[in-house]
């Protein structure tokens, strides 16, 4: 570290390096324990779950049986939940990200009447308690017959104010006013400038907003809990929570904790995978924003 004698090769540097790495490792263990617990629990029989140490595997490796149970119990409803979640999250996230891109672009690159007010409204939306929205949505949807349909979950999820905020910031950074002006001088209309000249610059931002909206929709619990009433429409969060409750109270009869654990494991894997894959994409893309000398 420069002139204070703390260079990369110095003993002091190496010592602080090990100490700091050790601190992070402690938290790493804490972060991974619940996930590891789910992994070991989904490989056990229900008897072993109670009879053996929770944070290690038991001799009887029961993962395959648990997975078979998971996908066959109640006529394979779990697969249906996974499919529902995937469908709700994907459609919501595509719509939300696309709307956020257009709105964020408008906020970033144009002046128009009511801009400040509208933006303040969008930002203020994060303060609205979930119940304040979900309860009236439930009542309104019941009036128009949308309750217990996919639209009841998807439509409200299209409103993703943080995405608008993020896209605005991203557009301001990634697209210079001069590029838009150059497009105007070249005779392109405003929408043509967006679709033909600047859209590809915005892909990393769009990917970021997409994945945030996707995770938000995948993890959504309160809204589907309220607007969905039959098991075949549940997303995985609502379904697992019900299984969990019946396993806890013992009312589910044949529902075993190990199956709930296996279900948890299966339902978090896609999001984690999506994150890992997409992370590369948007981290690489962020620096490639705009060509500037």
């Amino acid at each position, binding site marked *: *570290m*420069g*002139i*204070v004698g*703390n260079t990369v090769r110095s003993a002091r540097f190496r010592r*602080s*390096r090990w100490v*700091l*790495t050790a601190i*992070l490792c402690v*938290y*790493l263990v*804490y972060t991974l324990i*619940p996930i590891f*617990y*789910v992994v070991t629990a989904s490989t056990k029989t229900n008897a072993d*779950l*109670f009879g053996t140490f*929770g944070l290690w595997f038991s001799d009887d490796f029961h993962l395959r049986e648990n997975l078979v149970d998971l996908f066959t119990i109640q006529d394979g409803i779990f697969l249906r939940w996974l499919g529902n979640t995937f469908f709700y999250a994907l459609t919501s996230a595509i719509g939300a990200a*696309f*709307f956020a891109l*257009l*709105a964020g672009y*408008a906020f970033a690159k*144009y*002046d128009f009447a009511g*801009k400040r007010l509208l933006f303040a409204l969008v930002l203020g939306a*994060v*303060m609205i*308690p*979930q*119940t*304040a*929205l979900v*309860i*009236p949505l*439930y009542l*309104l949807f019941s009036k128009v017959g949308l309750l217990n349909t996919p639209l009841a979950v998807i439509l*409200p999820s299209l*409103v993703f104010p943080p995405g608008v905020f993020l896209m605005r910031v991203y557009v301001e950074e990634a697209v210079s006013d001069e590029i838009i002006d150059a497009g105007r001088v070249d005779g392109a*209309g*405003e*929408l043509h400038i*967006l679709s033909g000249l600047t859209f590809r610059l915005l892909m990393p931002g769009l990917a970021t907003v997409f994945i945030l909206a996707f995770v938000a929709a995948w*993890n959504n*619990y*309160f809204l589907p809990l309220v607007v969905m009433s039959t098991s075949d429409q549940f997303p995985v969060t*609502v379904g*697992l*929570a019900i299984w*969990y*409750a019946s396993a*806890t109270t013992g009312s589910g009869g044949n529902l075993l*904790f190990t199956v709930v*654990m296996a279900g*948890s494991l299966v339902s*978090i894997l896609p*999001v*984690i995978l999506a*994150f890992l894959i997409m992370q590369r994409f948007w981290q690489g893309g962020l620096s490639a924003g705009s060509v500037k000398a």
Partner: protein
Amino acid sequence: MTRFLAGHRPRVIIGKKIAPYVLLLPFVLVFVAFLIVPMIYAFNLSLHKTALVGGTRFVGFDNYARAFVDPNFWSGVWLLVRFGFIQMPIMLSLALAFALILDSGLVYARGLFRIAFFLPYAVPAVIATLMWGYIYGPAYGPLAQIAAFLSLPKPDFFSENAILGSIANITIWEYTGYNMIIYFAALQAIPADLEEASKMDGASAFTYAVRVKLPMIVPMIIVTIMFSIIGTLQLFSEPYLITNLARSVINSHFTPNYYAYTLAFTAQQYNYSAAISFVLGAVVAVFSYAFMLASNRGTR
């Protein structure tokens, strides 16, 4: 020189003036339909009362008057205030410390830590609660097992005294990495020549991190505190899901959102529930505004 435009007048259909409105249209449509309209509808609900006899009638601010003196509501708010004072400092200081450590480049395997710490954010709150619920389990949970192995008294994570800490732990686990990523991105945006300047000034990596970098991301820290305040006051999923494990301590008005939910969907009191939600919204706004004022004064 030939004149470029002879016969080639470009057709610009949507110009600079209307373009922003066209671009905003889709978002504003869903924003109005699924946010503004429900809000107005809920507000209208909150001004009415439904009785078994006589149906629905306008009662003005009666529901609000009731909410303002409803001990069930305020006990929930008070609980969350206590909760916030435990949870937020721990979560945000951990996030900040990790972000500073990772940004300093002083550790091995930075990428691994960054992604691993962020992972819990991808885990739905429902599943996080469920996982921790098992770990807390008094009969078969690994923590109880360790205690039994060491012949210690069995820890009770669902007791009156422990429940707040148990829930706080779940939310810390869920959101520390998310806040860390926000701080990390802000730190990465600090120009490298500042670090060189501080080295020339003889500052150690620690001094540079705390005295130079930390003050530069104060605006970001303020934003995360704001979001944490808002998120805390809206706590619902974690206590709701843990109810079965801790029946004796988690009641139907444990948090304000929980209370509004119970009022609406168990007691069918939509009108009063709507009023509770709006009062909660007002409480959120007051807390956020108070914090903004305080932080403005502090940074001036």
